[in-house]
């Protein structure tokens, strides 16, 4: 292997790719070649570093300089200053890593990374996901080797059970038990499936693992196959994730070539192979039986359980389905031991959890924290607080199946049981932060709108119940709601929860129930005073100009798309509320804060 003096890591995850990291890579390689440095410096295309808000991200080792928001135009400067002359380009560094002009702080000691613990994401942003050698160099496929050459299937399952690992896809079912059931089911043909149909809006944990460390999923699925006695695996991945699909295809081809997939793996006599299946945009396919129905080539409608998939799953055979993040934990459990894994986390929830921290938060991105970390630590320390001096109002977890955690409960320790107790849920890991400008009724309506659209239509409580619920919410945000309607909603929610066929319907009312529980006053403001306190619901507000503040600059009148603003130059203007479509363009334009929503 050739020796190099520097490594330049460039993030090639979806976030940074969207903000033009491929152009940076291209510029970098060109510039290094031009300056004759391409033999001394290696450029590594990695997965997600987590701090997507600052992308595109570039890290130069051995110095560990963390450059953020790099543009292709910055590349020549980085190469000639940093690589050639050894002078770090301070102006491009992530400001928190700058101690003074000549010293930089290790990334792991910045607020964003300090409280994190990377288990599932350990290779993301570290290795080149398109090179199997880099995965192997960091203990990759070692767990599989040990399992196949020295352990019996039951021993494998016992280790997973002892680790206390629970499903990371949402429900938190103990993984070892799931494997045990499938192992005990009789049958020559069994299947191992991976749920990579990450459908929760605002969540991209699984995608980041697939893009940054695809081999970990293949290795874990093969271990699972050995444990339950399956020889075929399927990864069901969203078609919306082109980069993840591409890297999985590369990884599968490499693993086959190296003999980690295929026949007689590690000369143990065990055969296993994996096939990719693409989803086509149906949220319900994240539900395990719906996912299997979809792989079979049908409309992705859920099936009645029992029989559970462990008994009768894909193509009618015993099947296990785990999600990407769950699998990402498996190999390390075998390398470092079940005890190591269960030493992290809380009494009932072991290990770590990856969250996608998004919404009204300074450090948007991907974070992995030990179970039991408080919401406050995540938002105020890791997330860097709410931007623009606004107040934290609520955090939403679990996507359309989850609920809102109000500011008063910010000290909640995050684990499965605690979140369920307060009416939210762990979910797959979306964590959406909302500030005082977010209307909780509007958010509940938004999620309901999503479930109505995504309900598969098979069972009545979900198909019709959610629709009726949405109609009530529509009336409330239009100012036509009544106090009685809130009670009716509550009743309907409980009905849908109790009677729906699958988890989609059973959890669909959660966003409504949790906002009703913690933000009743906001609902009351909508139905009684016909006001939206956050100023979001358009039908409940009107725009007006404060005459004393208006200088008559005409900027608002010019930007108004419907000509609703009139007035004479240098005289206060007025808004015709009948014409106004409440688009907000005038507020943005006004330099004197003279336009208000009332």
């Amino acid at each position, binding site marked *: 292997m050739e020796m190099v003096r520097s490594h330049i890591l460039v993030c090639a995850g*979806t*976030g940074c*790719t*969207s*903000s033009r990291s491929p152009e940076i890579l291209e510029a970098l390689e060109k510039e290094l070649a031009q300056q004759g440095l391409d033999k001394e410096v290696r450029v590594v295309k990695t997965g997600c570093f987590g701090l*997507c*808000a600052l*992308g595109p991200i570039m890290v130069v080792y051995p110095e560990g300089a963390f450059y953020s928001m790099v543009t292709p135009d910055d590349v020549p400067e980085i190469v000639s200053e940093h690589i050639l002359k050894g002078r770090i380009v301070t102006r491009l560094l992530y400001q928190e890593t700058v101690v003074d002009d000549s010293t930089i702080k290790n990334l792991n000691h910045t607020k964003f990374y300090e409280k994190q613990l990377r288990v599932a994401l350990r290779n993301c942003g570290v290795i080149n996901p398109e090179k199997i050698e880099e995965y192997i160099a960091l203990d990759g496929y070692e767990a599989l080797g040990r399992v196949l050459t020295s352990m019996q299937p039951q021993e494998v399952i016992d280790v997973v059970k002892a680790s206390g690992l629970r499903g990371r896809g949402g429900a938190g079912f103990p993984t070892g038990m799931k494997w045990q059931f499938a192992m005990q089911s009789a049958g020559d043909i069994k299947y191992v499936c991976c749920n990579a149909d*990450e*459908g*929760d*809006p*605002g*969540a*991209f944990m699984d*995608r980041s693992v697939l893009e940054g460390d695809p081999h970990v999923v293949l290795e874990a699925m093969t271990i699972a196959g050995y444990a339950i006695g399956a020889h075929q695996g399927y990864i069901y991945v969203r*078609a*919306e*994730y082109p980069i993840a699909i591409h890297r999985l295809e590369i990884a599968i081809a490499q693993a086959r070539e190296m003999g980690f997939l295929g026949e007689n793996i590690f000369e143990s006599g065990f055969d296993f192979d994996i096939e990719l*299946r*693409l*989803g*086509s*945009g*149906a*949220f319900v396919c994240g539900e395990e039986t719906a996912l299997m129905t*979809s*792989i*079979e*080539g*049908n*409309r*992705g409608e859920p099936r009645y359980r029992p029989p559970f998939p462990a008994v009768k799953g894909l*193509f009618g055979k015993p099947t296990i389905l785990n999600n990407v993040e769950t699998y990402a934990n498996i190999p390390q459990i075998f390398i470092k031991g079940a005890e190591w894994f269960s030493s992290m986390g809380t009494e009932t929830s072991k290990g770590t959890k990856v969250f*996608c921290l*998004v*919404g*009204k938060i300074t450090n*948007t*991105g991907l974070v992995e924290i030990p179970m039991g970390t408080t919401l406050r630590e995540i938002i105020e320390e890791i997330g860097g607080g709410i931007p623009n001096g606004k107040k934290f109002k609520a955090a*939403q977890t679990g*996507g359309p199946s989850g609920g809102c955690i109000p500011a008063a409960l910010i000290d909640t320790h995050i684990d499965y049981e605690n979140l369920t107790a307060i009416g939210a849920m762990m979910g797959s890991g*979306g964590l*959406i932060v*909302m500030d005082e400008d*977010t209307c909780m009724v509007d*958010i509940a309506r*938004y*999620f309901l709108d999503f479930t109505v659209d995504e309900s*598969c239509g098979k069972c009545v409580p979900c198909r019709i119940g959610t629709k009726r619920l949405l109609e009530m919410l529509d009336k409330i945000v239009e100012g036509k709601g009544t106090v009685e309607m809130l009670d009716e909603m509550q009743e309907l929610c409980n009905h849908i929860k109790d009677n729906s066929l699958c988890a989609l319907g059973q959890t669909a009312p959660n966003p409504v129930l949790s906002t009703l529980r913690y933000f009743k006053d906001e609902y009351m403001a909508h139905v009684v005073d016909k006001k939206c306190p956050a100023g979001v619901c358009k039908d409940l507000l009107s725009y007006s100009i404060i005459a004393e503040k208006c200088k008559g600059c005409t900027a608002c009148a010019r930007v108004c*798309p419907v000509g609703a603003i009139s007035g004479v130059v240098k005289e206060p203007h007025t808004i015709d509320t009948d014409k106004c479509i409440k*688009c*907000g*363009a005038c507020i*943005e334009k006004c330099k004197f804060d003279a336009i208000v929503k009332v």
Partner: protein
Amino acid sequence: MAKRKTAVAFKGTEEQEGQLLAFIEQHRSMQGNLMPVLQKAQEIYGYLPIEVQKIIAKELGIPLAEVYGVVTFYAQFTLNPKGEYKIAVCLGTACYVKGSGDVLDRISRKLGIESGGITPDGKFSLDATRCIGACGLAPVMTINDDVYGRLNLDEVDGIIEKYM
């Protein structure tokens, strides 16, 4: 999403049909092959008109009603052709709380088409999409393969005009 039948006449070529038939031939023995075949067909034709569904139904020996049922179940399959420039505004939660709903309204007004629609000249189609996972850049929209993140309302018109 809009599942109306398209008014645009089907203009599939023999070459396209040949590609589709070859793909079907390769995957004939695969378990659950309908979805991969439909995905490939949409890649070839850009959408899944009834003419294409008929070919698939006949070749795979699956009733047309069942093929249609699968096509209309999944949001990614479309019965209508898309514009030369496909504008997609992400309405995932992260984008939504950062105002992507207003971005969609602005474009809708500018082009005079609703979400799910296509301009009469076939140049632009507009869709509200589910989370595309670029939440760190919210609010986000894409025009074909170009991604525009950290949008503010003022720049939206200018971006669209670049493609006009």
